[in-house]
């Protein structure tokens, strides 16, 4: 049913999309880009794969289950927000240091970058969670629902 155009398009496009997302994330602080766009780009790649193959295959592109991505994303951002308290600073005081690494020369390491990673993770998680919930089509059960059926349904509580 899937058209060859879509299948090959998926095969050729997904890796560079991922790379582009990585670039957007890394460059974000100084050039156009950032965690939000990077996350959306990954999400676009995931949805493309879901179109070309299946939602299950698409979710395999991600390092973790959608719920985990959601939790980890918000957790990371929250951690960056709260971490300065330990050092005696205020919430969301974000330090940055400039270090010189071989190959990259001068690199600015900012806490904001970590925050951005969290944002990206969460955005990907949101789209993935929606995909996971809806599944491939309306007729068959979605992965999330299949899991539920397998784990046994919770008893009804009034």
């Amino acid at each position, binding site marked *: 049913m899937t058209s060859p155009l879509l299948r090959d398009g998926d095969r050729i496009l997904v890796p560079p999309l991922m790379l582009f997302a990585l670039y957007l994330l890394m460059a974000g602080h100084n050039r156009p880009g950032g965690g939000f766009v990077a996350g959306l780009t990954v999400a676009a790649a995931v949805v493309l794969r879901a179109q070309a193959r299946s939602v299950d295959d698409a979710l395999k592109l991600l390092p973790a289950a959608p719920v985990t991505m959601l939790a980890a994303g918000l957790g990371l951002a929250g951690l960056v927000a709260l971490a300065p308290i330990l050092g005696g600073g205020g919430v969301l005081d974000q330090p940055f240091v400039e270090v010189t690494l071989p190959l990259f020369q001068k690199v600015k390491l900012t806490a904001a970058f970590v925050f951005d990673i969290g944002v990206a993770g969460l955005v990907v998680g949101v789209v993935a*969670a929606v995909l996971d919930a809806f599944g491939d089509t309306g007729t068959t059960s979605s992965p999330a629902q299949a899991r539920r059926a397998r784990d046994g349904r919770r008893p009804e509580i009034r």
Partner: protein
Amino acid sequence: MIWFFVTLLTAHVIGAVLTAVLGTRLPRLAVAAATIPHVVSIALLASKAPQVLDGERLTASVPWAPGLDLTLSFQLDGLALMMGLLVAVAGILVVLFAAGYTGRSGKMGPMLGGLVAFAGAMQMLVVADDLLTLFLGWELTSIASFGLIGQTHHVTAARDAARQALLVTGTGGLALLAGLVLIGQATDTWTLSALADTGVPGGAAVEAGVLLVVIGAATKSAQFPFSTWLPGAMAAPTPVSAYLHSATMVKAGVFLLLRMSPVLGDTQTWTPLVVSVGCVTLLTAGWRALQADDAKQLLAWSTVSQLGLLITAIGVGGEEVLLGVLALVVAHALAKAGLFMVVGAADVITGTRDVRRLTGVWRRFPSLGIGVVACGASLSGIPLLAGFVAKEAVLEGLLHEGTLGTWMAVAVAAGSALTVAYTLRLIRAGLGPVDPQPSRRAVDPVRVRLLAWPGAALGVLSLAVGLAPGVQDGVVGTALASISEVSETPHLYIWHGFTVALGLSTLAIGGGFLVIRLLGTGHAPRLWPTPPEGTFTDGVHLLGDLARRMSRITQSGSLPIYLATMLAVLIVLPGVPLVAAAVIEGSVPGSVVRPGDVLLALAIAAAAVVTARTERRFAAIMSLGAVGFGIALVFVRWGAPDLALTQMVVETLGLLLFVLALRDLPRRFGPDPALLSPALRWILAAGVGSLVTTFTLVASAARTATPPSAQLAALAEPDGGGKNIVNVILTDIRALDTLGEITVLLVAAIGIAVMVTTGRDTGPSLPVEEVVDSDAPADPTTTGVMEETR
């Protein structure tokens, strides 16, 4: 000093998690893990006790949002020391009792973990100095108690009771918050210690604050008219009741009033309000306790009544009275926790809590007998026990407080008579002849010891404190010094001489015996109509029905109607004043228009028209995408690459998701729903279009101040360490906003996932699975149903 408070609180957090994790599988370790936080509390408090007893007030604070003047601040003074020790000592005994109560089969982890978490919340409340820290601890105790009362969540009654407790104490918590804010605003002082020094001004705001604070305390301490949640909460396992409804949670209200009495004691509302609430509760709840046959209900109403006594006395106030109140807080906690444990033990051993069927239990298990007699005697104020010393001190103090004090002393004596009566009923119940039939339940002797000894220990402790009341002089006296002016070194006496107070005590004891003589073995008659059980739950259900009816009216379920409503509001609310202002100003400012923009705008408009007019879904989606990309081009032309980038990616993603959804939808749109006529649609569309255009023009020309963006741009590089201003704003300067936004995203994602999967759970997919499983030919009716549902 801050490490003291951090250790105190984190010990409970760690203990709670550890206990819950070890749980039922490693019961011994779980019990140990649940005991350790209390031991840590006692050790910490003991280490600072010498300083506190010298009259020092130890404080520490952490600013957590200095920009908003929000600070977490703590204090350790005499009152905090006393309450903290009480919470921890009762905590250890309750943990041991709970171990016996649940036995091996029980769900030990969640309950013990909950108890530890609750103790942590209580400690936080006790050491709070900042008003909002106090509120935080207060609310945490409400939430923890919800989980604890609802422990047996498969029982409807337990769930209803937990919900009622949460709703009542939670609402009271909101009243308290409002009251604290009113007082804080009026004085511009947000710590208890500073408030105690400066006092509060008169005025309506402060008086309203007093009212709200007292409402908060009354809900927590189950005072009239909020009493019923506490007897309901007897659905909780007995260890929970022994802890929450004797020594800790319900004492939080008393504690709050004690803390507030030096601050608010001189306001006009305080004394009349507090005294009347306390006094009504003292007497009515005392009678209700006499009506109960369930021993736990009896104890619950007894607690309500005794708290009423304490609150009455706090309302009257005065140095001597408060000394008695503090001693009575301790004595009541010891006695009532003990009684709950004894009743719980009898419940486990005999399988009943009905006082008419407990016959012979105290004789069969002498350790239970010691507990019930000693604790009961202390509760009733029988001489030589802690309760007697404390009640004498309260009566003695009240008699020195003028007419109001004298009347209240009489009320306290009457309440005490009721206390003697219902306690006698409880004690006498188990003293009868031993049931010759062996108990239906064989209970392991180790378990019986764990069940009986904590109660007996509390009884012995009550006796010891009663015989040597001087041992508590130090702690209670320092606690008194932290809430009242102290003229001489306070001292608690076992013997005041032949005083009026002693006379009142004697009358109370005699009266109690008389009442029980008149009643015989039965329970007291109902003197006034009380709402039947379940009234509260019915009320909650009624509220739910009302909400459902409301949403049936407002939520038609039709997307066109929703959209039309929103757009109409948009046109009317900002639109009317905008047009009015434009008419008054006389002109709408122009803007820079470049030829390229005009072309772009025409293209976007054309795509939008196609989206609206086309009959095919796919075409609509594609042209909608064209609109989006056109707007991205506008961003590019006006030098906003970040915006353009995001817009493009969002459009792409949206397009992809739409196409994914398209698989399940018909190719063409159905006929237009007749709900909205085309004319109305045209009016709405034209209205919104012109409104947004006008608004953009006016808003961009109306600026008079320098835009803050210039400042942000200047800040970006040195402060945020990045050259991309947009990104620096998102991740650094306005990072809190971003954090909030991604939280909303997360919640939305969970909402979508739950909505979709829940709908499917009961949806048509199940019959299909069944058909496939059974290998039978497809059932025509099921498939028919499926098609219809789709």
